[in-house]
């Protein structure tokens, strides 16, 4: 049931929150700039998981106002989660095999990567 009376759960949830914040910071501390855009787009898709919240609330909704708002919430959250993952995949499709999996690379060993004549 939803916590509405006591404050027992709140400290546990705060603990989870703080730990998750540290994980979030740690995980993206070193990202090459070419991946900034896909990372932004991918994390954008992850917060689309608010759909789970929208569905949960939809199960309990009573009355027209809650149903209309709930319908809207589910619709918007679905846009976020589906569109987010699809568009990120499309972006990353372009990076296929790059740069680590490319087989022959003349300039691999030189620092500048400059194929000078």
């Amino acid at each position: 049931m939803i916590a509405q009376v006591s404050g027992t759960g709140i400290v546990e949830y705060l603990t989870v929150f703080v730990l998750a914040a540290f994980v979030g910071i740690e995980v993206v501390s070193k990202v090459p700039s070419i991946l900034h855009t896909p990372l932004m787009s991918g994390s954008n898709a992850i917060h689309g998981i608010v759909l789970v919240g929208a569905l949960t609330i939809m199960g309990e909704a009573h009355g027209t106002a809650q149903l209309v708002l709930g319908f809207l919430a589910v619709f918007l959250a679905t846009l976020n989660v589906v569109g987010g993952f699809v568009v990120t995949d499309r972006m990353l499709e372009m990076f296929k095999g790059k740069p680590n999996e490319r087989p022959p690379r003349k300039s691999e060993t030189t620092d500048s990567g400059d194929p000078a004549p």
Partner: protein
Amino acid sequence: MMAASLPLSTVRDLFYLVAVAGFILALKGLGSPKFARRGNQLGAAAAVLAIAFTFTLPTLRHSGKNLVLALVAMVLGALVAVPVARLVKMTAMPQLVAFFNGVGGGAASLVSIIELLHLHSLGLKPAVYVTAEVLLGVLIGSVSFSGSAIAFIKLQELITGRPITYPGQQAINAVVGLAIGVLVVLALVTGNIAFVFVLLALALVLGVIFVLPIGGADVPVLISLLNSFTGLAVAASGFVLDNNLLIVAGTLVGASGIILTRLMSGAMGRSLPNILFSAFGAVITATGGEAGDASRSVRTGTPEDVGVLLAYARKVVIIPGYGLAVAQAQHTVRELADALTARGVEVFYAIHPVAGRMPGHMNVLLAEANVPYEELKEMDEANPEMSTADVALVVGANDTVNPAAITTPGSPIYGMPIVHADEAENVIFLKRSMRPGFAGIDNELLYDPKTTLLFGDAKDTLAKLVAAVKDA
């Protein structure tokens, strides 16, 4: 107790935990070129798993009409999202991310509001901390929603990309901020839900006035920040619903989004406060640069002249910008590079970190045109070589080669690292018009004696250059 007899709610929570682990691995993967795509797919799988197990909720399963409505909304959402995400041009990617982010913020805000309505309709008075969680979710989610909407409109160029300032801006911001503070206190003390709706309206206004003064070139950093906000709004709705999955996923995005925002503003050589608040009081510098450019003379050339110059050069550096993307000229530019390489000219691309509209955007566009990875050089790698280049060919870029970033302390882009096109022996600009770049400021390099301008659509001009190089 045997595993088979675990209560369904525990099983569901366990699968939520699996999804959480999936999200963390997804973020980790997205940060590495090798695993990025797999990371994203893993994230999608985790989301599907979590959503599927949400349907085991007895309240949802036995809710009849509600369940049908939820399924209809999901199907509609997917029917809109998939074609949009697949068909929108790569150049419009930043707007699209802003759009998906905004709707997520809106959803998070709605979830918090509905839960509050629900508690009230049951005749329960929520604890103060629950009200606080709802207020946070509504506030952050709504700011993200309306802020993303304005960012979308700016990127789509439905309104000017320049910072929008107006008289009394700071006073208005102060009043809105103060009103929000007062409302939060009132709502917490009285528990009256009418205040929550007023707060919702004011938060939407706040999102708009927060984004309007931010210049177009900075909007990608802003979207990253709003992305982080939406994450936090989702976390807040997780607190409201006592749902660990939402708390962790939202917080992960919130925290990583802040770091990413800092990385992105760092790539532009700007601090975050500078990006967010520099327009205030800087009205004169932002618009003053444009005056007088009509009277100054520039040198224009013909594609034939420039073709010969390119064909007999030893080293040519191509500096692509958003204009190249808009003209869909990434394939033609590759043809030109191939024609030059065939003649023994050394060619490489100098990629500014924010070329295009977002960090890494240009890499995506050029990868789409199958430009060999070895020919792409990041700005820091390219700059030391600029002084040895015979020709810097600037295709649809402007702000990213504007020396004002180094020479003019009052300029809005002052401090942003640039590609040093001005150090090359000759500079060729392919431009559509004398219109200033996205940042809305004039570029001294256009008037430099060693600069030649080729006006016209980038794709047409490049095609003419290819022909000229082949004839030379």
